[in-house]
C-alpha cells in the first residue's frame, strides 16, 4: 500500500465535498475519508513501507511515530462532526467539510515531508485551509480571531520560509548542490556554513514555534481556539501543532549534525520552560473554559519542546506525549463544545451547574481535565514522568523543578475553573438551552472514545508504538 494515499485520499475527499450536492449527506464524507486514512496510517504503522532515502515524501519512522495519532483524532472528530453539523444546519457545510479534509491531507503531507521546501508548503497550506474553519461561526468575534490568526500565523510562516532559505544557503555555501532533503542536509553535517545554520535555526524556531503556539508567539491561540467550533479546536491543538513540532525535530537534527546541537537544545529548553510558565500564569487567571484549553495547549507545547531539548530519552518521551496530548486534548475540546452549546456561555461567570444540566459531558470534561493535568493512569502521566526522568538523567534538575512547579499551578488553574462551571445550581435561562441540545450518544461517545484511547495508551502502550518511537529517535540521533 502506498503511503501517498494518506495525502491523496483526504484531498480527493475535499474536492468531492466541494462539489457534493447534498447538504445533509455531505458531512458523511468526513468519517468516510477519516476511516480510510486511519486504516492506511495504522496498516503502514504495523507494516512499514520501504522508503528511498532521497524521497521527498515518505512514511519514515518520525512520521509513523506521530501521524497515526492525528489520524485517530481526526476520525473521532469526524464522527462527532456529522452530528455537530446536523445541529448547525443554519450554516452551509460545503466549505467547512472541504476545508477539514484539506487540512487532514496537508497535515499528512507535512508529516511525510522529508524536504525543507515541501514541509514549508504543506505547513503554509494547513494554515490557509484552517482559515474558513476558524470563522465558521461567522460572528464578529470569530472574524477578529481569524484576523489575529492570519496576521500572527502568516508572519510566523513567512519567517519559517526565511529560515528555510537560510538553511538552503548554508548548504549551498558548504558546497551542496541544492538538494534540500533532510537526509542530504544531515549528511553534509559540519560542512554547512555555521553562521547561516544558526540564523536558520533562530528563524525556524520562531516560525514553526508560532504555528505550535509557543510563548511568546502564542497570542493567536486563545482567540482562535476560543472562537472556533470545538471540533476545529481539537484538530488545531492535536494536529496542526504536531506537524510544527515534527518540523522542529527534523530541523533540530540538521542543526545538531552541523555541530550546533547544544545551542539548539538550550534554546528549546528556554522557550519550552517559558511557554509553560506563561501558560500556568494565564491558566490561573482565565475565566473562559474554551480559552483555558488554549492555554493548556500552550503548556503542553512547552512540555513537548522541553522533551525535545533533553536528548534521545527526552525526544522519546515527547513523541509519547504527542499521542497523550492529541487524544486527551481532543476529548476536552469536544466535551467543551458540548458544554458550550448546552450552557449558552463560556465563562465561569455565566456557566454553572453543568453537572445537573449536561451530566455526561460534565463528567467527561472533569475526567479529561484530570487526564490532561497528568493524573495517573492516563497517557500524559506516563509521558510527563519520562520527561522528568530525562531531565534528571541529563542533569537538568532546575528545569525539572520548574516543570513540576508549572504543572502544579496549571492543575490549580484548571481545577478552579472546571469545578466552578460543573458545580453549583444551574441558571434558570440555561435550562431551556440545555433542553434544546440534548446529550445524544453521538456527541458523548466520540470524546469518551478519545479518553479511552488515552487511558489505553497509559495502561498498555502497544509494543509497535514503542518500537516506532525508538526508531524515530534513532532517525533523529543517528549513530556517529
Amino acid at each position, binding site marked *: 500500500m502506498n503511503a501517498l494515499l494518506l495525502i491523496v485520499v483526504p484531498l480527493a475527499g475535499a474536492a468531492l465535498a466541494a462539489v457534493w450536492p447534498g447538504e445533509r449527506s455531505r458531512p458523511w464524507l468526513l468519517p468516510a475519508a477519516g476511516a480510510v486514512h486511519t486504516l492506511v496510517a495504522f496498516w503502514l504503522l504495523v507494516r512499514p513501507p520501504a522508503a528511498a532515502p532521497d524521497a521527498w515524501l515518505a512514511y519514515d519512522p518520525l512520521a509513523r511515530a506521530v501521524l497515526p495519532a492525528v489520524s485517530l483524532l481526526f476520525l473521532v472528530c469526524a464522527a462527532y462532526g456529522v452530528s455537530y453539523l446536523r445541529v448547525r444546519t443554519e450554516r452551509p457545510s460545503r466549505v467547512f467539510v472541504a476545508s477539514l479534509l484539506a487540512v487532514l491531507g496537508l497535515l499528512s503531507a507535512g508529516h511525510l515531508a522529508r524536504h525543507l521546501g515541501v514541509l514549508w508548503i504543506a505547513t503554509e497550506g494547513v494554515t490557509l485551509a484552517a482559515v474558513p474553519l476558524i470563522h465558521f461561526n461567522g460572528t464578529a468575534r470569530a*472574524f477578529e480571531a481569524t*484576523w489575529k490568526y492570519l496576521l500572527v500565523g502568516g508572519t510566523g510562516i*513567512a519567517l519559517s520560509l*526565511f529560515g528555510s532559505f537560510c538553511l*538552503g544557503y548554508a548548504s549551498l555555501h558548504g558546497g551542496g548542490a*541544492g538538494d534540500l532533503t533532510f537526509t542530504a542536509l544531515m549528511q553534509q553535517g559540519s560542512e554547512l*556554513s555555521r553562521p547561516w545554520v544558526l540564523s536558520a535555526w533562530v528563524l525556524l524556531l520562531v516560525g514553526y514555534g508560532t504555528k505550535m503556539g509557543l510563548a511568546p508567539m502564542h497570542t493567536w491561540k*486563545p482567540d482562535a481556539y476560543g472562537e472556533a467550533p470545538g471540533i476545529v479546536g481539537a484538530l488545531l491543538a492535536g494536529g496542526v501543532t504536531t506537524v510544527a513540532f515534527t518540523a522542529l525535530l527534523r530541523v533540530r537534527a540538521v542543526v545538531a549534525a552541523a555541530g550546533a546541537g547544544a545551542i539548539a537544545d538550550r534554546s528549546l529548553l528556554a522557550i519550552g520552560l517559558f511557554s509553560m510558565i506563561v501558560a500556568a500564569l494565564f491558566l490561573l487567571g482565565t475565566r473562559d473554559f474554551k480559552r483555558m484549553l488554549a492555554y493548556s495547549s500552550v503548556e503542553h507545547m512547552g512540555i513537548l519542546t522541553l522533551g525535545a531539548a533533553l536528548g534521545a530519552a527526552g525526544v522519546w518521551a515527547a513523541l509519547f506525549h504527542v499521542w497523550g496530548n492529541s487524544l486527551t486534548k481532543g476529548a476536552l475540546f469536544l466535551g467543551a463544545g458540548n458544554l458550550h452549546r448546552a450552557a449558552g456561555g463560556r465563562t465561569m461567570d455565566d456557566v454553572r451547574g453543568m453537572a445537573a444540566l449536561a451530566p455526561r459531558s460534565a463528567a467527561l470534561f472533569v475526567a479529561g481535565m484530570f487526564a490532561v493535568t497528568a493524573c495517573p493512569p492516563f497517557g500524559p502521566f506516563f509521558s510527563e514522568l519520562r520527561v522528568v526522568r530525562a531531565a534528571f538523567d541529563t542533569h537538568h534538575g532546575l528545569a525539572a523543578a520548574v516543570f513540576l512547579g508549572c504543572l502544579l499551578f496549571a492543575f490549580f488553574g484548571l481545577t478552579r475553573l472546571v469545578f466552578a462551571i460543573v458545580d453549583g445550581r444551574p441558571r434558570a435561562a440555561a435550562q431551556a438551552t440545555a433542553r434544546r441540545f440534548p446529550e445524544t450518544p453521538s456527541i458523548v461517545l466520540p470524546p469518551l472514545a478519545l479518553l479511552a484511547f488515552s487511558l489505553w495508551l497509559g495502561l498498555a502502550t502497544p509494543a509497535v508504538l514503542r518500537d516506532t518511537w525508538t526508531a524515530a529517535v534513532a532517525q533523529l540521533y543517528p549513530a556517529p
Partner: protein
Amino acid sequence: MNSSLNLLVGLAMGLNLLALGSSRLPALIGTVAAQGVVLGVMPFLIETHFEWLVALVAAGTIIGKGFVIPALLRRAMRAASIEREVEPSIGFVPSLLLGAGGTIAAVALARALPLLPEHAGSLLVPGALASVLTGFVLLIGRSKAISQVCGYLILENGIYLFGLLLIRATPLLVEAGILLDLTVGVFVLGIIVDRIQRAFDSLDTRKLTVLRE
C-alpha cells in the same frame, strides 16, 4: 550585472523608507506595488541567458505583487469607503528613524554572514534584512488592516529578495510553490479584510479588542 542588480536592490530599500513615511493609504499601496515590480525584474538580471523557469517566476512576481494584490487592496479600500489616512501608532518620524537605523544594522549584520564568491558585493542580503525589518515596523506600528497587509507584503518582499540567492540551486517545484503560496496567503488576507469591514464597518484593528484577558 551585479551593479545593476544592486541598483535595483537599493531602489527597493529606498521604497521601504518611502512606505514608512507614507501618510495616505493609496500612496502606501502604490509604493508596495512599485517595489513588487522592481523585485520582479531582478531575476532577469541574475540569469544571463533566457530560461523559461526564471521568466515564469519573474512574470508571476510582477503580475502578482505589482498588479493583482495592489488592485485587491484598492478594491477593499474603496468597498470599505474608509478614510485615506494611515493613522500610525508609531509616528512617521520614529518609523523612519527605525527604518533607517534598521537599514544600517542590516548592512552591518550582512557583513558578519559569509557569502559565496559569486554573491560577494551583492546588496541582496542587507536588502532582504532591511525589508523584513521595515515590514515588521509597519505591522506593529500601523493600526489599519490595509496598512498592516502592506507591511506583511514588504516583509514577504524581503524574503523574496533573499530567495533570489537560491534561484539557481533550488528545484522548480519549491520555487513555483513558494510564489503561489505567498500570493494566495495575501489574497486570503485581502478577503478577510473585506469581511472584517462588513462585520465592524471599520478597518481599524484597534477596535479588534473584544478578545483579551
